[in-house]
Structure formats: structure tokens, C-alpha cells
């Protein structure tokens, strides 16, 4: 059971040709800029009136490190967080999480702390968690001090940066920092263990499924 939600969950996250794939989830109060951070990171765009990304289960983006390519499968809450109705399935199996709050909104920082607790309780013990104080461009209406957040992050072993999806400040950086911190070899030990499930695929030929999932 050590790998509840852990690396071993993902059949396709083996180190093969030094490409590692990880599931990364974004969490945090509504309107803190989760979708905007993803959009900035994946497409280099920012929208003043960001709408939820309709029709996408998740987006992918790669980060190149010296010897490895890290491919992120990035999951957005699809707005389910709005009325505190996010399904636990969403963060199950995630190897990384960015918990976002809005530096101009103290409540959103409180909500971020709740998420940290929830992940520490429910998610894989090895999950890499980053805390993002978003909307750093609005520093003149700041409600959450940078030091306070930094101290909280240190206490809980989280990566921490203040980001802005609007100006792109620290957006690539935070994903890069996560990529560096993620264990790149650990999957090997988990992979192939009998504890994995398989993803279902179209059944044009029954033999085909084998390639797509663990044995």
C-alpha cells in the first residue's frame, strides 16, 4: 500500500529514453488563477477573463532537464473547486501538486493550507507539493506577506514561489523546480508490480491492450 497514489500508479511513467511522465494537479480556491497558470505555462497566453478550459481532460507540457525530459500531465479542477466540490479522484495518483493562492486574498491562503493538510493525509507520501502565491503583479494590494508564506512552506517542506500568470513571473520556474525535485528513477521499482491497474482502450484487437498498460 506504500504506493497509494504514488508513482507506481502510472503505467506510463517509466524512465524510458529518459522521458518521465508525471501527473500534476492544481489545487486552490476558485479564481486564484489555477487555470491561468496552466495556460501561461502550456500555451504562453494570459486572458484577463479566463474561462474554464472546456473539453480538456488534462494538458501536457514538457520540461527539459540536463539528462531527462519531464512530461507533465497537468490536471485542472475544471471549476469543481468553486463550491468546494472537488472529487478526491482528481488528486489520486498525482505525483506533484501546485497549491495556488492569491496574494491579495488572505482567505485563499487559508484554503491553500487546508489543501496542504488534505494532500498530506490523502495523497501519495512522496508527492512533491509546491505553493504558488499568484497574482504577484498586484503586489500593491497584497494581503499575504511573502515571508509568512515562505515560513509556512519551509515548515511543511513545500516548494514556494510568488508567481504571476499575467506577467509570466516564476511560472516556468515553478514547474522547473518541481521537475527537478521529482524522483526520476523511483518508478522503476514500482513499475511492473502486481499492484497496478490498467487503462482501458478501444478494443479493435484484444492483443493491442498489452502495450498500453502494465502486464
Amino acid at each position, binding site marked *: 500500500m506504500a504506493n497509494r497514489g504514488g508513482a507506481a500508479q502510472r503505467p506510463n511513467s517509466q524512465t524510458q529514453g529518459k522521458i518521465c511522465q508525471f501527473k500534476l494537479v492544481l489545487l486552490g480556491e476558485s479564481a486564484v488563477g489555477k487555470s491561468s497558470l496552466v495556460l501561461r505555462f502550456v500555451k504562453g497566453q494570459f486572458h484577463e477573463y479566463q474561462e474554464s478550459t*472546456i473539453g480538456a481532460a488534462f494538458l501536457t507540457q514538457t520540461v527539459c532537464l540536463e539528462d531527462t525530459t519531464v512530461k507533465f500531465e497537468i490536471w485542472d479542477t475544471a471549476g469543481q473547486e468553486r463550491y468546494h466540490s472537488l472529487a478526491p479522484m482528481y488528486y489520486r495518483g498525482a505525483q506533484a501538486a501546485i497549491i495556488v493562492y492569491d496574494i491579495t486574498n488572505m482567505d485563499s491562503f487559508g484554503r491553500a493550507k487546508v489543501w496542504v493538510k488534505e494532500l498530506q493525509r490523502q495523497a501519495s507520501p512522496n508527492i512533491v507539493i509546491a505553493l504558488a502565491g499568484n497574482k504577484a503583479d498586484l503586489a500593491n494590494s497584497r494581503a499575504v506577506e511573502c515571508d509568512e508564506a515562505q515560513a509556512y512552506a519551509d515548515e511543511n517542506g513545500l516548494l514556494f514561489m510568488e508567481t504571476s500568470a499575467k506577467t509570466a513571473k516564476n511560472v516556468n520556474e515553478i514547474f522547473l523546480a518541481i521537475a527537478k525535485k521529482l524522483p526520476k528513477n523511483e518508478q522503476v521499482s514500482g513499475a511492473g508490480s502486481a499492484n497496478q491497474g490498467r487503462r482501458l482502450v478501444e478494443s479493435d484487437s484484444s492483443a493491442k491492450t498489452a502495450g498500453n498498460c502494465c502486464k
Partner: protein
Amino acid sequence: MDEEYDAIVLGTGLKECILSGMLSVSGKKVLHVDRNKYYGGESASITPLEELFTRYGAPAPDQSYGRGRDWNVDLIPKFLMANGSLVKLLIHTGVTKYLEFKCVEGSYVYKQGKISKVPVDQKEALASDLMGMFEKRRFRNFLVYVQDLQEDDPKTWKDLDPNVCTMQQVYDKFGLDKNTQDFTGHALALYRDDDYLNQNALQTIRRIKLYSDSLARYGKSPYLYPMYGLGELPQGFARLSAIYGGTYMLDKPIDEIVYENGKAVGVRSGSEIAKCKQVYCDPSYVPEKVKKTGQVIRCICLLDHTIPNTRDALSTQIIIPQKQVNRKSDIYVSLVSYTHQVAAKGWFVGMVSTTVETENPEAEIKPGLELLGPIRQKFVTVSDYYEPIDEGKESQVFISKSYDATTHFETTCLDVLDIFRRGTGTDFDFSAVKQNLGDEDQ
């Protein structure tokens, strides 16, 4: 909440979540509400284990049960047919991307107090202890006939038009005895009673073919089970709905459906009213619009061992055909385990269920419980089975049926597709979802 929606869905059981997903994908503006703070309603998986014990008023579990949060115990036991309609729905809606599955290891059938592996191909049939030598040969001929039969090619019909003759006539032609008929009808064609014998043979032949097609997909049995339990399924479809714009509110008590001239126009929670054109819900939200048509008994059994005589299968299904125990409906036994992340290491969750036929339902499931060996903890539920009293055309309130005693999701899917058709006047267009999802995962 004070907004206007095309449809409001009440309850986050599997059926409601599939419906919500299909409606959102079809471009409808959907509000999806549940009075509970968790997803799944009647078809949830309960976690942590302490919560399950509390639910049934039992004293808290002791140390031996391991970490409570390693448990996700289904309230309703079901498996997916690998080639069945739920798997098709999962694949065609892309929801399968959120879930991982394991193949159920064994499929067994009960005969005269013993269980035997369900033979599915000719090789297994020949090795089976269900039949004597001559019967085996007859059964083999029958299987060859079923496999070779082409609906549109009379040459493969062996002088029996499957469109016209009954299944009993087919059995008789091959000289199959009552026992063989019993496991063929109940463990392969998966009928719950014997009405099929006097009905047209073609539908039974299709079912047997589909059983073997499901089996062919992953090998060990035709059944699949999702990691972390069945409660993942409604959550997956809820996410689909949210991705297509559906709004989610859990922990929201619903006071009433608001009607105008007999037609639903909204839903009230406290002082808030959400307007809508249609309501989709499970029976618990509309007690005045459903009728009780029966009862189902389900017994959750926590075990620290596998089921005896199943070759230590970590997951299995056993069907006890009605006649074997002088009943009108079959008894189903299922087992899943820690390997599905639904129990702490070394633990198993067994479930025995059937349609209630007597005043003493607990006695009815005894033959099932006896197969399990020592049981550490037992939780029994007898639930009423409800059906809507009308089609919902006038009120625009579309109500799902309760979950039946079957151990699979086929009737679940049929109900969902039927409700969708009644509510929208069309069949669900799978292509609406496929195209959009194509490009996200290169």
C-alpha cells in the same frame, strides 16, 4: 445557485453522474447537486473504514484492520463486463483516462454445494468438473455452434432458425441436461431467472458470444474492477460533466422541486431557487414519484483471507443459480481486495447480494455467506428497490431506478441511456465528446 439551467441533476450516484456528463457534453447547461458531502450517493465507496463502521452503528475497528484510509468499501457491489456497455461508455466519453482497472481473476458457479470455475471455451469445458464426459462433448458441440453462428447466414444455423425458435429448443437439440442449461443461462448468458428459456434463442446466443468476447479482452474473466473502488466511476463522469461546463455543489440540502402547472421549473434549497427546464434525479429526491417494486439484500463481509476453493484468487465472482438453492433469483458473491486499493494490506471485501424473496432476507443469503469461510465483520443492508411511476414526459422530472441485485452494470447503463432518450428525445451522440478530447493528450 440563483441561476437558470437547462437541467438540474440531483444526487451523484453513478447513473446521475453519467447523465450529467452526457447532458453537459451535449451542450446543456447543467447544475449538479448532492445533499451529501461526498460523491456517489448509494453507489459510493466509503472511506475511511471508521466511517463504514459508524454508518452501521458498529464499534470502531481495532488495530488489526490497518489504516482506516486504506479502505474504500463499496456500498453496492458490481463488476464491469470487459466488453459491456459501461466500458463502451467509459471509452467513448474519455472518462477511462481518469481510471485504472484490474481484471477480476476468477468466475465461478455453484453446483450442489460446491463451486466450479465457469468454463468459457472448449478447452476449459473439457477440463471442467461441472459435467460428466458425455455431457462435456454435448456442451462442446453447443459452444462451437454458438461461436460459429452468424445471424445473417442460415447455413450456420444448423436447421434451427434462432430468430424463431426458443432457447429451450436449442438446448434440447444439443441434448444439454438441466445442470448445463443452468450454468449456461445464469453464469454465461447472465440471466437472473429462467424466463429466457421460452423466449427467442437469438438474444441468449448473443449474450453467450458477448461473454466470451469480454473474456477474450483480458483473459482471466470477463469482469473488470476499478482501482480504489466503484466510487471512482461517478467521480470520473462528474469530472467529464465539469470539464464541459457543469457546475457542482455537494453538501447542499434540497428542499423541494418547484413546479408550475405540473411541470418542474426549478429546485429550492433554503431561500435559494435555481431555475431549470428539467430535473434528473435518483428516487431518494422524489419519494412521491416512485413506487417500491422489491427489495435487495446486500451483505458486506470483511475477510482476512481469500474465498476457499478459488485458487486464492484476489478477486472473484461466484453465481449461485436460483434452482441450485430453490429460489426464484440468483445469489451473487463477489470479492475484491487490497490489490485494488479498497482494503488494507492482507484484507478482502466480500459481498453477497440477492433479490429479497422472503420475510427473512438474511437467511436467504446463507448459501453465499457459507462459501466465504470465516468472516471478521459483517454489515447487512436491505434496501428497497424503487422505480419511477411515470416516464417524466409531463413533469420533466426524470428519475432513475434504484440499483438492482445484479453484479454488473449492464442494467445500469440501459437505464441511463433510456432516461437520456426520454429527457432529450435523442440518443446520446458519442462523437460530440470524441473530437474535442482528441487533441489534448498528444
